[in-house]
């Protein structure tokens, strides 16, 4: 469907670019991710959605190889293109991927950019290290990248420090740095949560345009379901580290089958929303999680077995759903 990038056309069109299977991550006694699986094809966009503590950002960090070995116990499999297992990949292996083939746009650009280096300096250092460009070539390319992400007067901005830019401009610079090496997979962790709505629309459009132009794939971490429906082909609904429902975003958001997806959607405020019917309470702490489905404590459809037994993520048409008592089919 989408033309794969030139430098990896041979790598088998049948296999998805990214396949995560049973990813589990434990920090001390807390199981932050509990058997997460997802796949992403070339040129596809996927949204990880859910409330805070769902593990959305943790998945993105794991895909970027940013989980310290001593900090957390990680199990399961993550295959990226021809790299069979990202989970057991060593730091040298990550050095060949991170920033070059998998890149990330962080949530808070102001914090992610180094305050002590100019915008140009940060771009040039990435281009020189990763692509081995000469200083002059790197500077030329940095200028092109800044212009590409819609920064006016890019020449002058090269010598600006991050604090001298507005939040929207900082995020554009982040996008430029992430795209510097034409990655095959872009991870965007809540790229617009700190920005005004008009700027949010600008940045999301920018990211979508750029990855489409490169035939790259993108994983967005989002908390706004409406925004996810506007920007992503696929959606993975997470709750407390478990996948509740996954599949094409349109189908899932138009007709949620999992009770959690339905409740999450019913909390979304649109202009003219008359009533909101949120689930009671909040996400329980890890110590109080039921052994079965973690949503069982707040689920209106919960059955006794939901608390004891974990429903398997099973295919149903194009979507995957983990629930013993889903909403009726439409």
């Amino acid at each position, binding site marked *: 469907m989408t033309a794969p990038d030139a430098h990896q056309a041979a790598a088998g069109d049948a296999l998805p670019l990214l396949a995560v299977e049973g990813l589990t991550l434990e920090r001390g006694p807390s199981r932050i991710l509990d058997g997460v699986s997802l796949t992403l094809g070339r040129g596809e966009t996927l949204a990880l959605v859910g409330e805070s503590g769902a593990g959305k950002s943790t998945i993105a960090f794991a895909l970027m190889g940013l989980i310290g070995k001593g900090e957390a116990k990680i199990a399961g499999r993550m295959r990226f293109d021809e790299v069979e297992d990202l989970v057991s990949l060593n730091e040298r292996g990550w050095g060949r991927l991170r920033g070059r083939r998998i890149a990330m746009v962080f949530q808070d650009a102001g914090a992610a950019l180094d305050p002590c280096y100019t915008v140009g300096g940060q771009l040039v250092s990435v281009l020189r290290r990763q692509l081995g460009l000469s200083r002059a070539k790197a500077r030329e390319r940095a200028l092109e990248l800044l212009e590409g992400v819609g920064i006016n007067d890019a020449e002058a901005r090269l010598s600006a420090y991050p604090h001298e830019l507005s939040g929207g401009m900082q995020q554009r610079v982040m996008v430029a740095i992430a795209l510097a090496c034409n990655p095959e997979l872009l991870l965007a962790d809540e790229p617009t949560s700190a920005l*005004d709505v008009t*700027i949010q629309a600008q940045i999301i459009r920018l990211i979508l345009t750029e990855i489409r132009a490169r035939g790259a794939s993108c994983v967005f971490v989002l908390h706004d379901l409406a925004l996810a*429906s506007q920007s992503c082909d696929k959606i993975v609904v997470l709750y407390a580290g478990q996948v509740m429902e996954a599949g094409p975003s349109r189908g899932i*958001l138009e007709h949620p089958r999992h009770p959690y997806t339905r409740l999450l959607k019913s909390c*979304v405020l649109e202009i*003219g929303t008359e009533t909101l019917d949120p689930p009671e309470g909040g996400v329980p702490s890890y110590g109080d999680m039921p052994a079965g489905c973690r949503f069982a404590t707040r689920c209106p459809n919960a059955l006794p077995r939901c608390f004891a037994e974990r429903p398997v993520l099973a295919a149903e048409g194009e979507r995957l759903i983990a629930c013993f008592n889903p909403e009726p089919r439409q």
Partner: protein
Amino acid sequence: MTKPGTAAPAASPAQGTNAPGTGASDRPVFELLDVEKRFTVSRPAGFLKREKRSLAALDGVRLTVRRGASIALVGESGSGKSTLLRVLLGLAEPSDGKALYLGQPVKEVRAKSRDFARSVAMIYQDARASLDPRMTVSALIAEPLLHFGLCGREAVGERVAALLTRVGLPAEIAGRYPAALSGGQVRRVAIARALAAEPTVLIADEAVSGLDVSTQAQLLNLLRGLKREMGLTLLFITHDLGVASYLCEEIAIMYLGRIVETGPTDAVLSAPAHPYSLALRRAAPEFFAPITDPLEGEIPSPLDLPPGCRFATRCPFVEDDCRSAEPILAPVARGRTVACRHPLNAEDSPVSPQMPAPAVTHAVGSRPGEGAEVSA
């Protein structure tokens, strides 16, 4: 709109300090009359030189808050929402114009008695920072009760328990410290604390932003219920048009220190008259709608204001005369005002974007060509 005569008789100090309920009920709770707030900033002007420049954070702002009204104040960062709030609360004095509370200057009312502080309650944007980390929840909620002498010490426990129930918190939370509470719980404590003094006006600065949607929905339902039960006058600062439409009957949209449009929330959002309101309306995420061509560029610096209309630099409908003189807020329809030389009329409503974008919004379905279609 504003008749100086009506405010005059009430200005006698004898009445003013007393209960806001009697006799003053027809008077607006708050009135801003052409409020201007300037700050002086100094910035580099060549080698070792600095120049002093005047920055107008608010410029010619008029706003009337009637008793029982619920008003959403909407705008992006830098639009002057927070400065307007500081002026309303008497924390900043207007450089020009008047800020009145029940017909009297806010500054005077505040200086004269505690009534103002008791009647006007505030929920701050960063709820956690607004609560003393060394006080327990019960002590935090009891503080206003004791400060205003609303009940004896023996009754405090009971009142605190009642307030906790009212905001939907379990009783056992009373002994905890703010650090042990979740984001949603902290907001509820801030609301309970604001309600403790039995205010008539509640001012909330982004009280539900940065929360999970389910927590946000719970809090919005709580605030809606409180407004109804207690007959509160509500002024809600938000950047989220969905929140504004859910909670507030009226809306005031700000851009660069000016109010650019006011009116009933439903009417304004279904057919904005100001191009900026339309841009905001269309930038709000909407299920399955394509992401529309957003507004170009960013809000200009208030130090380098463009000539004429401040929105002219980003306005897709800009015409030559927009750049010559600044438009003033004038009536466009019943209960609606707009500050625009060429206001959009109902036919250009947001469901049929006339902006130079091929966008389609949900109401017109897949018929982008039929520009003049109106949903309402």
